[in-house]
Structures are given as structure tokens and as C-alpha cells.
């Protein structure tokens, strides 16, 4: 680039240089109310896509010694509706449908007959806090094998007794630490923690670990209802 020798030349050169910054104006779209939501949703979608790329089914979440456990009495729970949806534990079943060979109602005894896994893992809330809890239950991947789920299906959707709902990508669902959890700290789930059956997903933010499970559907389509908090604007993938 030649050095301008006088004011006139400098003006010409600087004007041209300033124009090369005009692509920055594109960011102004974030200030337009009509465009803001689609742009931010696009950003979230891209983040979810990148999160799915980063996810490794074989990479375990850190597990902790018992001495690191948060005492059960101080394990907080966020419930979206009620602390206890008053489920009749005697007649409770998990209804399985969708792309499975053996749909139907499964009892807690059937789930408990699967190999039991207990693990001390970190439960991270989207708010920023976390606790280390002891969770025990059947591997979700074992249960999917029991019901003959299509291994190529893309999603699982869950419905809950308290009208909460969630959905999960298949790679996260078959992660060996993803549990259908029926015990915490060696005891059957307390009503506040999702009795009789909840998800425990150490590779996901807390809101993905739905409680009070009543229905599981294996599907390739998610539809409009992707998750209670997801539909409020939180990330769907929510992977840690």
C-alpha cells in the first residue's frame, strides 16, 4: 500500500479502508426485535449441533468417592409443579411405545431385575449450582434392549406424572452412565426426587433428568413438545 502524501489522498484511502468494515453492520440485526429471536434460536441450534458433535458415548463423567457426596437431606430439588404428584406406587407402571418390539406397561420389578448400577456423579443445574449424589438403577441402554428398541431410532421422549416432559438423543441415552434411577443413597427414591422412577443423566444438565416417569416412547420425530424447560427457551441438547 502506498503512503498517501497529502490530505486528499489520505481521505480517499481512509474512506476505502472504512468501507471494508461494513460487514460489521450485520450484527445490528441483533438489535432488531423481529430478528433477534430467530437469530438467538439459530445460535442455540448451532450450539446444540456442536454439543452433539462433541459428545462421546464412551467418555465417562467423573465419579466421586462417598466422602464427596452431598448429604441426601441437603440435596436440593427443583420441581416445576408439585413436590409430590402423589403417585400410587402399587399400581405404577412405565408405558413403553413407539419403535420397540415389545411395547406395553413395565413394572418397577421388571426394571429392577436388570443389572443394578450405583454411581456417585455430579448433578449440574442450569442455574450454575451442582451437587454430587449417589444414584442407582438400571442402565437405560439395558432397558432399551429389554423392550427391543430400534437402535437406529433418533430420540426417546418421556412423559411424567407431574405433566413434565423431556426428550433425549439416542447417543446420550445409550451412554453407560445414563440410568433409569430408582434409588438414591441406597434407598428407594423419595417423593421429592421423583419416586418411583427418574432419569439420572450425568452427561446432561439437571433438567434433562426427568422425574416421576410414566411413559417412554422411542421415535424419530420430536414434534413441538421437546421438553418442559426446552420449550421455554433452554437448550435441548443440554450436554455437559
Amino acid at each position, binding site marked *: 500500500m502506498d503512503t498517501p502524501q497529502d490530505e486528499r489522498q489520505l481521505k480517499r484511502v481512509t474512506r476505502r479502508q472504512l468501507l471494508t*468494515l461494513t460487514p460489521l453492520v450485520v450484527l445490528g440485526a441483533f438489535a432488531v426485535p423481529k430478528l433477534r429471536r430467530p437469530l438467538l*434460536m439459530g445460535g442455540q441450534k448451532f450450539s446444540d449441533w456442536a454439543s452433539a458433535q462433541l459428545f462421546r458415548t464412551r467418555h465417562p463423567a467423573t465419579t466421586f468417592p462417598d466422602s464427596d457426596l452431598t448429604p441426601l437431606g441437603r440435596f436440593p430439588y427443583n420441581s416445576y409443579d408439585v413436590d409430590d404428584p402423589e403417585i400410587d406406587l402399587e399400581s405404577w407402571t412405565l408405558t413403553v411405545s413407539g419403535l420397540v418390539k415389545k411395547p406395553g406397561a413395565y413394572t418397577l420389578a421388571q426394571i429392577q431385575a436388570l443389572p443394578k448400577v450405583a454411581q456417585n456423579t455430579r448433578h449440574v443445574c442450569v442455574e450454575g449450582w451442582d451437587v454430587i449424589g449417589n444414584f442407582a438403577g438400571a442402565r437405560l441402554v439395558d432397558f432399551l434392549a429389554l423392550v427391543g428398541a430400534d437402535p437406529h431410532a433418533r430420540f426417546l421422549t418421556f412423559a411424567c406424572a407431574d405433566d413434565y416432559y423431556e426428550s433425549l438423543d439416542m447417543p446420550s441415552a445409550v451412554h453407560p452412565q445414563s440410568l433409569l434411577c430408582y434409588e438414591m443413597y441406597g434407598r428407594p427414591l423419595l417423593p421429592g426426587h421423583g419416586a418411583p422412577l427418574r432419569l439420572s443423566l450425568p452427561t446432561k444438565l439437571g433438567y434433562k433428568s426427568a422425574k416421576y416417569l410414566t411413559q417412554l416412547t422411542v421415535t424419530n420425530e420430536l414434534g413441538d413438545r421437546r421438553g418442559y424447560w426446552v420449550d421455554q427457551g433452554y437448550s435441548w441438547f443440554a450436554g455437559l
Partner: protein
Amino acid sequence: MPEPKKVPEDKLKEAPQEQPQESLPEGAKVDLNAAEPVPLPVSRIPAPTVETIRAAYEHPWAVRFSHWLNAISLFVLSTSGLQIFRAFPSFGPRLPEKVLVHVPPTVTLGGWLGGALQWHLTFMWIFMGTGALYLGDQFLSGHYRTVLFTPRDIPGVWPMVRHYFLFGPKPPVTGQYNPLQKLAYTATVLLGVASVLTGIVLYKPVQFSGLAWLMGGFHRARLWHFVALCGFLAFIPGHLLMVILHGWNNFSSMGTGWKKNPEYLAGPSE
């Protein structure tokens, strides 16, 4: 930038024949270095006498572009980050649940946790892309040598501090950036890198468990992420004050790249 058109000597001689209605006054000089095609012959109105100036192209495009992208991204990331922080204003595990730092809602963006996360996770990509553009350009072009703080700059820091804050004598200007500037700008790049690395741990503590361990764990990463924000918040007011004190010529160079008569070019005029 196109090369200034050089007009060959024989073309100059032919020129009056191409446009016979005008003629070159005797002794008129044609500026061979003018950047636009030379209008031949020169107008009858005498050209205003122009003063020779010196100018330096201080900031290449990648620097200016990433500077303004960063200004916008850092505004969005810090305000939305403070909104995210308000959901759990602490650095430890859940307990003790104490509000360690109170953040007033007026300095936040997003309105609620979910909205702030959308802003934060959208602009983190812009911020990381900008960082990659800037660092890639600096190292490929070799520009980093003008701004990177090295041990050789250490002796020059105190005289600059004395000049800026204690009204000491002004140290001689030797280059585009003085040692204190190099220190500040190098520090902001490190703050950016630290923000990204700690942010990655907060966003993906399981996938990047090794990085989390290096930072002393998930909770520490949250603390370091906040410390990096404090670093930026300490830099920005001083940076803005300096920009205001150094005036328009200095400020506009971050838009146009060119700075008129920079001090380090001072010397006998041609």
C-alpha cells in the same frame, strides 16, 4: 488497494491531442503518484496548494475488524454473563447458599436465565471466531511483533506508568506501542484465551474433564471465568479514557487503519 496509475511519458505528450479543447499550461506538473487516473490535462482552476503529510497504516483490516467484533461481543458476553451469574451468585457448590456478589439487573442482558444463555452461547461463537481470526492474522503476518509484550519491554513499563499517573517526564516514543500499551494489549489477549478455556469447562465439564481438572475443578473454572471478566472490566475504562485523551486522529485509526503524523514518524518534513 489498486496501484496508482503511472502515466507513461509519451502518453502525456499525446494527451492534448485527445482533448484538444483544453491545453496543458506550460510548466504544469502532473502528479505521477496520484491514485486515480490522471485527468488530462489539468483543470484551469489552480489546484489548492497541498501540504505534505505523513501517515502510517497502523491497523491492518483483521485487527480493526476483530477489534470492533470484540467490542460488541464483550459487551454482550459480559452483560449476559452477569445475568447467568444472578441465577446462582456463588462459586462453590450449592452450599453454603450465599449471594457472594450482588449484580444489579440494569447491567444484565437477556432478561432471564434462559434468554441470557441464548445470548451468551450465540456470541461465544462470534468471540471465538474473532479470536481465531485475530491470532491467525497476527502470527501469519508477523504483526504480533509490534504489540506482543516481551521481557525487553519490562524496563519501559515503569517510566510510562510514571508519565501517565504521576505526571513524570514523557519517555521517548520509539514505536507504534509503548511498553505499557504492549502489556495491556497482550494481557487482554490472554484474558480472552482464559475466558474461552474456562467457559469451555463450564459449558462442557464432562467432555473436557481433563481441562476442568487442570483448572482445579468445575467450581474453580467458574471463579476463573469471573476473574477474567473482572480483568476485562478493569481494562475497558482505562482503555476508553486513553482513547478520549488521545483524540480523534488516534480513534479514527481503528476505523480506517491510517494515523496522520504519528509521533514515531516525527522528523524533518520532506
